[in-house]
């Protein structure tokens, strides 16, 4: 702490700078939050108030937009789309966790010829744009008769994902070697060591992988767009995009549908903030 007579010499700067910082932070966060609040409040606003400026923040919320979405005849079949999305999410999350963890163990804790080369090849694949593989993969799935099924959206997850493998490898390498060696001396095989020692110790890292696998599947748009044809099989993202195409001006319903897609992610975020930050450090961008 500096002596108090120093403070008295420059009172304005010491007072104004923090005030300014807070003022700028409040103003900017208001700008960032505005579209977000607009989305949530518009979903609950009666039609008469939707297009009012300046916006009305205090109003009697209505569920009319949600009622129309939950109507079985609605073009946006929320429950169906949600069930489809959750099914795909469940398979890709468990597939990615298991397969990526298994591969990561092979890269992290076992020595075998060609390991490092293959690892660097895998790192290289993280830069390859998905569009380059898209067409042959589509041809392959079409030959297999998998078009308009969930298989093209789920099966690839069973082989792991380079980002997740990389992340889990880094984590597995921090597990003390003595622990694994002791188990080896006791006569346990590598599969048992992986499953009974490494996996339980890695729950925090596996949670990050699970979270981001979930976000990827929840947000994915181009794959459902390419592979799903029948409306009963649409995911939320594909259903919402099609709904937007048909009902461009029904802002209340559109915002309600968008809010239904956004809110689970926001709730998830508030429960898993630490994992969110870890995952972002890995991928550099949002899931």
């Amino acid at each position, binding site marked *: 702490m500096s002596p108090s007579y120093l403070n008295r010499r420059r009172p304005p700067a010491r007072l104004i700078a923090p005030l300014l910082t807070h003022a700028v932070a409040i103003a900017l966060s208001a700008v960032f939050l505005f579209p977000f609040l607009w989305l949530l409040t518009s979903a609950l606003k009666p039609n008469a108030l939707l297009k009012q400026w300046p916006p009305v923040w205090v109003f009697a919320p209505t569920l009319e937009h949600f009622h129309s979405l939950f109507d079985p005849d609605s073009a946006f079949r929320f429950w169906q789309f949600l069930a489809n999305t959750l099914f795909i999410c469940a398979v890709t999350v468990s597939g990615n966790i298991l*397969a990526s963890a298994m591969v990561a163990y092979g890269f992290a804790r076992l020595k075998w010829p060609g390991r490092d080369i293959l690892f660097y090849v895998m790192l290289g694949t993280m830069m390859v744009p998905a569009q380059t593989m898209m067409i042959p993969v*589509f041809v392959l799935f079409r030959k297999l008769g998998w078009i308009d099924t969930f298989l093209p959206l789920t099966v690839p997850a069973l082989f792991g994902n380079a980002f997740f493998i990389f992340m889990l490898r880094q984590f597995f390498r921090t597990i003390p070697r003595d622990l694994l060696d002791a188990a080896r001396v006791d006569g346990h095989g590598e599969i048992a060591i992986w499953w009974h020692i490494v996996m339980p110790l890695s729950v925090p890292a596996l949670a990050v992988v699970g979270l981001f696998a979930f976000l990827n599947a929840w947000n994915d748009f*181009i794959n459902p767009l390419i592979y799903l044809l029948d409306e009963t099989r649409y995911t939320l993202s594909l259903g919402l995009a099609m709904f937007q195409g048909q009902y461009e001006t029904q802002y209340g319903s559109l915002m309600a549908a968008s809010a239904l897609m956004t809110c689970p992610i926001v709730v998830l975020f508030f429960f898993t903030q630490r994992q969110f930050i870890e995952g972002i450090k890995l*991928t550099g961008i949002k899931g």
Partner: protein
Amino acid sequence: MGLFFVSPYLIGFTLFMAGPLIASFCFSFTRYDIFNPPKWNALNNFAELAHDRLFLVSIGNTAFYTLFSVPLGMAVAFALALLLNRKLAARPVFRTLFFLPSIVPLVASAVLWVWVFNSQYGYLNWALRPVCDLLSLLPGVDARPPNWLQSPSWAKPALVIMSVWGVGGTMVLYLAALQDVPKTLYEVADLDGASAWQKVRHVTLPMISPILFFTLVMGLIAALQVFTQAYIMTKGGQPGVSTLFYCLYLFQNAFEYFRLGYASAMAWILFVFIAVITVIVFKATGRFVYYEGGGDE
């Protein structure tokens, strides 16, 4: 045993990475409509691309989007991170507020921004209209809010603005890096009488350069593949072809016109281009990126 553990990745790599990469390379020399077997077409796809106006337009549009959205996003994220790194009450609250927009699913935010940008009913123009009216009081000025997504010259900037809304993830990365910069470096700079700008320029930027570099590479790769926003918000590249981005045109060729050979040629050009740009960024920024501990890992 090691091979057993990595076997899922090896199979996946063969089926969904190496195999398709080779296959799409081969497709790019063929005429292929998916219903009939591919026919050898030599280099004709590439020759045709060179004269395809839409192909060239899509490159221009993608370049515009990338050149504005990536640096702007990094600058805004860095400015926000610097702001949050100051003495701030309730810093975690502010961090969450700036971060929240970035977790809104892209399709949901596309639907939201279509309305925000609507020239009659969008709130952006409601907010801009009084400003424009005020400006129009000046002699010779006739300011009007832009038509955003309906205007060929404003549709791309609109998508750039929307992308800046989602910089929260990058900001979180920068903030974490800022908080890792040793305080002693700033104290030494203070003793040397460095100004605030000099401290940012000579201490902060070099110390967080690895993360700046990382976000630059990832941001470039992501921006070059922009697709979803344009597909949903501008109905496949409208108005005119002003938001026809590279991957949108690739998608249309493959899945709307069933020109899979032609689209494969585009896919390979994109692949090579991203590889080249990554190497160039590596080389160009190499001497600016500072790795603590020498960086020889």
